[in-house]
């Protein structure tokens, strides 16, 4: 037994000497030095590393590592030049002309030209990305000169420039178009190159510095590693063990633990959550067609209490679906419907439902059950009986879009431009206007947003927001705060319109 014990002791000592927990490489001497390793965590692996199939949100860092986009965004979503240096619309905003850089080469030696840019745009429009509809209004794209790109639209699109700063504007080398391994071996002009030898598809992506990159001051590290951590437990362990420098937390349950361990948290409000009152014409439930009933619902729910109970206070109470950076935002609207049970009951009585009414809502098996219990309780107190139907996570979107329900709890992104929000949730063809309700006043305002000058569009957006709140099309409770966690030697600036910070805004501290 003596030799066994000695061997065991030796093993333990060896492991302790070179055991885990070592930090990920040395930090660079400052932003833009391009040395050192940045290890990031992501919730999901990239669906496709081909530009024409690229997704965004939590997959943005993968795409930004290898590809340049035509434009860039500031952290608060203002447009900046990038591969495109200047641009202008024609009078009716259906033709966008962009002047491009001429000094950019892809990592395989191919030159970046207007023709290459045009091809990339059309491939994205016709490709497999979940966001291909970003370029749905693009009728055509051509090169009118080697450095001039012309995009023609079927109608004005105020969100186009934003999309061109994201996955829709990602530029891939023409030699890689249609390659057999296009989805796993990307060829771009971006700050880093994928190291396919060290990469394990689905788990770990290793990128090394692009030695011929044209914007060297945006290359903050020599190597970028993105690991996939799919559960909060794994994320917390990786952070506390010093194995990762930054990641987007899956939820807020470990915030206190992480703060105590010296991890920095960068909060970020991207989504609003609350009820969407779809059936504004009363097709499924006549009661919901009455504005007083919808307003009653808004008065009946205690937003502060919801925020505390469901998301532990991580967020800010709101009464509108537009975000604080949007031209449509009006702080006054946040207090349009204070919590007032009596007022709710009064409105219901005025609408003819003094003796009560029943509505059917879907109950999802994701999201905390607290939400559904509380909604039932608050609405019940005001005289509205809630009947729940169980809906599995996989069927949630399909059931909502069918449409199967007159109203539902949900959580949606607050896009930076009113045009995006209108097309996503308000217009007659909007995804989340599931009954495709047409409202002439709304249509008129959306038209102004689409075609008007910046000032006209801004005024129209504010009017639209006020109208939607007055008419109680939604019952927003609060903006949910997500957090990006980073270690002490990393600095992060959150991106107002994306779940994940943009790669160039993650820098070594000091």
């Amino acid at each position, binding site marked *: 037994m003596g030799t066994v014990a000695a061997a065991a002791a030796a093993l333990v000592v060896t492991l302790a000497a070179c055991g885990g927990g070592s930090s990920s490489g040395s930090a660079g001497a400052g932003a833009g030095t391009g040395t050192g390793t940045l290890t990031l965590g992501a919730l999901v692996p990239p669906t496709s590393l081909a530009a024409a199939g690229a997704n965004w949100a939590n997959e943005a860092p993968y795409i930004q590592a290898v590809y340049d986009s035509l434009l860039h965004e500031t952290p608060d979503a203002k447009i900046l030049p990038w591969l495109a240096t200047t641009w202008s619309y024609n009078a009716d905003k259906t033709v966008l002309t962009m002047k491009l850089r001429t000094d950019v080469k892809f990592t395989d030696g191919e030159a970046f030209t207007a023709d290459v840019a045009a091809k990339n745009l059309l491939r994205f429009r016709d490709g497999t990305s979940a966001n291909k509809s970003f370029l749905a209004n693009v009728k055509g794209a051509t090169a009118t000169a080697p450095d001039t790109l012309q995009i023609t639209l079927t109608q004005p699109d105020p969100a186009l420039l934003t999309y061109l700063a994201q996955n829709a504007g990602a530029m891939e080398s023409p030699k890689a178009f249609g390659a057999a391994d*296009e989805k796993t071996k990307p060829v771009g002009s971006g700050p880093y190159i994928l190291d396919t030898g060290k990469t394990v598809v689905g788990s770990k992506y290793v990128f090394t510095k692009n030695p011929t990159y044209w914007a060297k001051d945006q290359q903050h590290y020599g190597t970028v590693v993105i690991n*996939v951590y799919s559960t909060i437990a*794994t994320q917390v362990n990786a952070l506390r063990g010093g194995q990762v420098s930054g990641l987007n937390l899956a939820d807020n349950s470990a915030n206190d633990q992480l703060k105590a361990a010296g991890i920095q948290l960068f909060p970020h409000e991207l989504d609003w959550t609350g009820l969407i009152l779809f059936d504004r014409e009363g097709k499924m439930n006549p009661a919901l067609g009455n504005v007083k009933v919808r307003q009653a619902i808004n008065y009946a729910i205690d937003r502060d209490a919801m925020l505390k109970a469901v998301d532990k206070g991580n967020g800010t109470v709101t009464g509108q679906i537009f975000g604080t950076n949007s031209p449509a935002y009006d702080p006054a609207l946040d207090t349009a419907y204070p919590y007032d049970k009596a007022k709710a009951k009064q409105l219901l009585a005025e609408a003819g439902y003094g003796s009560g009414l029943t509505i059917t809502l879907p109950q999802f098996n994701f999201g905390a059950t607290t939400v559904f219990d509380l909604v039932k309780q608050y609405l019940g107190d005001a005289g509205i009986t809630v009947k729940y139907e169980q809906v599995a996570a996989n069927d949630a979107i399909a059931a909502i879009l069918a449409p199967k329900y007159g109203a539902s709890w949900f959580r949606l992104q607050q896009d930076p431009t009113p045009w995006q929000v209108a097309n996503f949730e308000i217009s007659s063809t909007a995804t989340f206007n599931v009954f495709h309700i047409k409202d002439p006043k709304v249509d008129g305002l959306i038209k102004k947003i689409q075609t008007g000058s910046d000032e006209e569009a801004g005024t129209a957006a504010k009017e639209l927001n006020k109208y939607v709140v007055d008419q109680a099309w939604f019952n927003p409770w609060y903006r949910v705060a997500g957090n990006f966690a980073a270690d002490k030697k990393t600095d992060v600036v959150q991106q107002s319109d994306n779940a994940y910070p943009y790669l160039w805004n993650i820098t070594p501290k000091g």
Partner: protein
Amino acid sequence: MFRFVLRRLGAGVVLVAVLSTLTFLLLYLSGGNIARRILGQQATEDTVLQKKHELGLDRPLLTRFGDWVSHAAHGNLGDSWFTGQPVSDAISSRLAVTLSLVIGATVVSAVVAVVLGVVAATRRGWADRLVQFLSVLGFAIPGFLVAIGLVTLFAIKIHLFKPTGYVQFGESPTQWLSSIALPVIALSVGGIAGVAAQIRGSLLDALRQDYVRTLRSRGLSERRVVYKHALRNAAGPALSVLAIQFVGLLGGAVIVEQIFAIPGLGQVAVGATGQGDIPLVMGLVLAIAVIVVVVNLAVDLLQGWLNPKVRVS
């Protein structure tokens, strides 16, 4: 012996064939529009039909199965529908990782179980009761709970092991050991319990036999009696239990790989089955079936070596 191995291999091939066929049918016949599921709700009907044709879903089931079999026989398992990566690459790059975990857990289980079983059977008394108690505990506590506790204690509070990730053996043997230590321990907990109990029981039986009394009377040390003779006879049933545990470990590896962010087969299995990535799932089922057949064959051979009576069957 040769015929024994050949027969076992034959049975293994039949098993793999049956498993592949059943899985194929289950995956393709489970209903739902596969092309639409891949493209999402927003896709147009045209794109869906295009995708259907691209994936060969508009051909008859039997033709598709025939194609899969003939390609698989040449080592071509197709490409993942979601990442585009060749399935054989996806599996081969991860096979070694999962095997490190599972074989490691098996070895650790076996060694610890033998020690515990022997202590229980030879010392009796309080040691025996302690081991039995630990066995029940090992059965009852889920592996991932142990895993989470271990990480907090041994990887974060004390920087003894790595909290997440996997380092290849080729890169650094010590770092490799450090990265699999906690996952292996988490996986072993359940395995130890079953095997230790089995060894204890079989060893008690063996020690009661006449030949043991004879060996003792001839002056053999107790250590030789137990380890060289009695244990060898008691090992048979324990080995069978271990083989069954091994298969269970493959399933346990799925959870452990998620928690420790280890790029093994388990991690990709969760994603592939959740998304309905049929080529990848078929590849995984094939790989796992082959592993199970090989392990069972190895265990049978080991049984044969331990106990010559088993060889004649």
